[in-house]
């Protein structure tokens, strides 16, 4: 059914369709509406789940860790500082191969304190071993949460999945979302969770043992392999979803007007909508330009990126994060992917925009397209700074 929903409501409803058994959360802007909606669903009896409102994000993640280890479906959500406080536990969840699903309402990091959107929080946890998907709009956010459980719980993956949704820009925006009417259809897509190893008094395994030097690397290697393998599962989950529900947003990446593009804009998340509109305008004026959307940031879609960019001249990476002491993050990874495939005909220009909720406008996109034609391998340059504050 098509209806107008606030992003947070859409996400909560997507989570409800997956019927998690245990939800735990601690409030942080802009994640709050999601968990408020979920706790209301539990209070109203629309979702049968144990909802544990904890005393910190560290415990929110720890509660779902403990519950997940018992073999039930679990969910949590956070943002920004909350995520950083959770980070230790996220490593642990991934290390113990527990299929927790989590929403990250992307938000800037202190200091200065800032509640608005960017993706610096996500970038801070990119090596935790969690799969990181990024939603472009609230429809995709809704659908992606259902897919996330399927990916996480795949027997050969067994990793946490973090669904990134831009804070406020998606979580607090009302727009049309088509929800799924039949929970049975979702069940058909997403079968009940079935973990081979769990905390069970009949089969009493020990979880989270001491991994001495003789075994630690092997355990990390297995995780690393599972993450690599998850590429297939993410793509499969998207395709199966399309077959069943008719909606598709790409596998690890998606392309928009790429075929003959000399200039390609690469981005992830909600800014893609604004970029696509700007690209339509540029196309009308005769520019050969297209868009590559990163849908899965971890695992990183190296092959897809190389295939999409190898014939381009200019690549513009629009990134809402910065690595002090280096530059861009996504742009560096893209450049590395091309380098590894010995493609040196492409100039990859990384630009930093939209930090701490700074609006990214169509004019920004037009300006960058003009700039990128003259620049070469820009490394995370800040765009749109106010000279008066420097």
């Amino acid at each position, binding site marked *: 059914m098509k209806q107008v929903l606030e992003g947070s409501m859409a996400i909560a409803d997507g989570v409800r369709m997956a019927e998690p058994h245990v939800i735990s959360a601690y409030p942080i802007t802009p994640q709050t509406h999601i968990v408020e909606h979920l706790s209301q669903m539990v209070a109203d009896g629309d979702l049968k789940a144990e909802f544990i409102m904890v005393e910190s994000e560290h415990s929110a993640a720890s509660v779902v860790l403990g519950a997940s280890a018992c073999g039930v479906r679990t969910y949590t959500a956070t943002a920004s500082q909350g995520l950083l406080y959770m980070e230790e536990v996220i490593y642990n969840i991934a290390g113990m191969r527990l299929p927790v699903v989590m929403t990250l309402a992307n938000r800037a990091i202190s200091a200065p304190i800032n509640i608005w959107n960017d993706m610096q929080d996500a970038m801070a946890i990119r090596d935790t071993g969690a799969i990181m998907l990024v939603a472009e709009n609230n429809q995709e956010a809704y659908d992606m949460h259902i897919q996330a459980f399927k990916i996480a719980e795949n027997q050969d993956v067994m990793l946490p999945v973090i669904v990134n949704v831009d804070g406020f820009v998606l979580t607090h925006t009302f727009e049309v979302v088509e929800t799924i009417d039949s929970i049975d259809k979702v069940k058909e897509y997403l079968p009940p969770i079935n973990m081979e190893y769990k905390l069970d008094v009949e089969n009493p395994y020990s979880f989270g043992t001491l991994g001495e030097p003789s*075994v630690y690397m092997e355990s990390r290697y297995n995780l690393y392999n599972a993450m690599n393998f998850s590429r297939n599962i993410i793509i499969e989950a998207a395709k199966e979803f399309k077959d069943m529900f008719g909606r598709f947003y790409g596998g690890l990446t998606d392309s928009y007007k790429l075929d003959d593009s000399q200039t390609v804009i690469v981005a992830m998340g909600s800014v893609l909508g604004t970029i696509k509109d700007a690209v339509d305008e540029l196309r009308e004026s005769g520019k050969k330009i297209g868009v590559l959307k990163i849908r899965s940031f971890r695992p990183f879609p190296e092959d897809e990126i190389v295939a999409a960019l190898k014939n381009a001249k200019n690549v513009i990476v629009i990134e809402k994060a910065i690595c002090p002491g280096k530059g861009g993050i996504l742009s560096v990874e893209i450049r590395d992917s091309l380098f590894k495939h010995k493609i040196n005909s492409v100039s990859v220009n990384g630009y930093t925009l939209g930090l701490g909720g700074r609006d990214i406008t169509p004019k920004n996109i037009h300006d960058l397209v003009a700039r990128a034609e003259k620049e070469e391998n820009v490394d995370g340059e800040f765009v749109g700074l106010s000279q008066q504050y420097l």
Partner: protein
Amino acid sequence: MDFKVGIIAMPGAALSNKTGSFANETPVFKHKTCTGCNLCIYFCPEGVVYGDKKTKIYDFDSDYCKGCGICAEECPVDDIEMVLVEK
């Protein structure tokens, strides 16, 4: 499945680790004054002492005894003695 490597251990698998080799001393149950109080069983940190309250016959599992000497120290009737392990 591969992911259990380093993470998940089988129940009680520690029994394969014979900690008896830690011991420098080992108890000798003299069976002279024993009253069958069972304190040696209670107090053994490893749980290696076994025996019977009625017969007052106690022994220990040398495969795992670390030779701490608590049983001898706490025996209220001095019926346990620690002796050096010959290595």
